[in-house]
């Protein structure tokens, strides 16, 4: 079976399977939290829409960018290989006439699309509930799609990273957690080029508005997200993110092809 067709079949198999696992239900519910918050905020603070937008970016984007997509990518990314090995269902896949890298690519993309759907729905609901008053305003939609784009790229980059981690380590989730919530949350606030070592830095550089670049002061946009951010140019950020995603996936595929997986029986 040709490589491309194999990837498409693996993609189809795991898109179907992904929708049915209990894990998806848990994370879909997790995605409802921002929507619930948006509804509560809408009731309590209606009338002061300016404050609402700030609150949204402040709290909800933090939730999405620094928690939701990371936790999603962590559990789904590592499960691309780690889950198959832990549950020993890998045997069903590697004894099929498809190249091993196709398993990684197919499954990773299937899960990425699944995550993107969950994040997209959750973002759309909470965003438009929050800004119900300004529905006619065209650049509201521009902001929304930009957010969606940033989160999408975030999903891809993190999924690639955690897929790679899952292929290398046995206890990928614990190490993944340390990286996702430890390293990423800390390094992004370091001055100078060190913050460029975290994926979230490039995602934040793509966010629509920046405070006037005088230190960290002034402007409505001094959001938690932009605190001490020295953004790289959007184009560079996108290129780096793409390179990281492709590089890590390729590495994961190569490793998966070479490594033998022993179930400790």
């Amino acid at each position, binding site marked *: *079976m040709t490589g491309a*067709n*194999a990837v498409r*079949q*693996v993609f*189809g*198999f795991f898109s*179907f*399977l992904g929708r*049915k*696992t*209990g894990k998806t239900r848990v994370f879909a519910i997790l995605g409802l939290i921002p929507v619930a918050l948006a509804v509560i905020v809408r009731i309590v603070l209606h009338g002061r829409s300016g404050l609402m937008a700030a609150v949204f970016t402040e709290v909800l984007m933090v939730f999405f960018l620094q928690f939701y997509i990371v936790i999603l990518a962590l559990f789904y990314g590592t499960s691309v290989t780690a889950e198959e090995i832990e*549950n*020993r*269902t890998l*045997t*069903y896949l*590697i*004894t*099929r*006439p*498809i*190249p*091993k890298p196709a398993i990684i690519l197919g499954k990773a993309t299937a899960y990425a699309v699944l995550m993107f759907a969950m994040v997209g729905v959750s973002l759309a609901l909470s965003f438009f509930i929050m800004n119900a008053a300004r529905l006619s305003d065209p650049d509201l939609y521009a902001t929304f799609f930009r957010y969606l784009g940033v989160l999408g790229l975030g999903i891809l980059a993190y999924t690639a990273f955690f897929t790679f981690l899952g292929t290398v380590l046995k206890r990928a989730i614990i190490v993944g957690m340390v990286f996702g919530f430890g390293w990423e949350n800390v390094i992004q606030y370091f001055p100078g080029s060190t913050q460029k070592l975290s994926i979230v830095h490039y995602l934040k550089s793509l966010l629509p508005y920046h405070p006037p670049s005088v230190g960290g002061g002034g402007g409505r946009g001094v959001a938690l997200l932009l605190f001490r951010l020295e953004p790289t140019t959007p184009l560079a950020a996108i290129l780096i993110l793409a390179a990281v995603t492709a590089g890590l996936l390729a590495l994961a595929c190569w490793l998966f*092809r070479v490594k*033998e*997986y*022993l*179930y400790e*029986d």
Partner: protein
Amino acid sequence: MTAVIAASHLSKWYGNVLGLNDVSLEIEEGITGLLGPNGAGKSTFMKLITGQMKPAIGSVTIRGRKAWNDPDVYQGIGFCPEQDVFYEDVTGWELVTGLLRFYGYSRTEIRERAARALDVVDLTADKDRLIRGYSRGMRQRVKFAQTIAHDPDILILDEPLSGLDPLGKRKLIKLIKDFKKQGRTVLVSSHVLPEIEALTSQIVLIHQGKILAQGDVPFIRELIEAHPHQISVRSSDPRALAARFVGERSIQKMTFGADGRTLVVETHKRDAFFSRLTGVVLEAGIAVEEISSPDDNLQAVFEYLVGK
């Protein structure tokens, strides 16, 4: 017959644990039983054949092709893993059709093959229930269905009968025998030796990573010199019978069974003994109820070659 599966000087170990140690053998068409104590290297051998592991030394080929990282070889191989693990959240039908995607069949052909495979293992009624809710026997049968769905001509089955009740076993044994009649090659590993005996008399015995014996069970029993053959004769008067045999040179040992009717004779020259037995029984006029050889089965062969 050309060898379907051929291994030459195959060795494999992980860390300092020895898996296989210089194994060279050929498996022809028909059913071959693969057996050995736990940790003998059975599952290592199966993983090497099916390309889930890379040989450290030597090579193993299926129909001449190495299985490691050569996906096309799987078009003709059906592998039934030993672990009782599944994608639990899908139904039997979804599992079999899902796994059939990877063989390049059209949608209709996938449905046809899945329906046929599930029908063969009597799961048509339960095909739309989640595998999570399947009983142990049903899980084993759905696992077998996904092994045969793509109509492979080589079946590699790791403990296919475990968890099945006597009826389930009987059906699966008949099924595997039908496969053999269609000229396919079946390699079956099992712990329960009577199950292998019900399937075939061709066995490969692995122990401590080496091939101890390969061939037909009675033939192997013949070759085992260390243990003389046991022949048990139950009759109304075992002592009289024994008295007549005392002079026989071919007999090494005679013991009387606790039930007071059985005489067990140990001899290295079975032919010589049997040719005399019928005559002696008729001369002595003793009513014989049963003649059998207690150690002419796989369990005994296994014990002699492997036992402590």
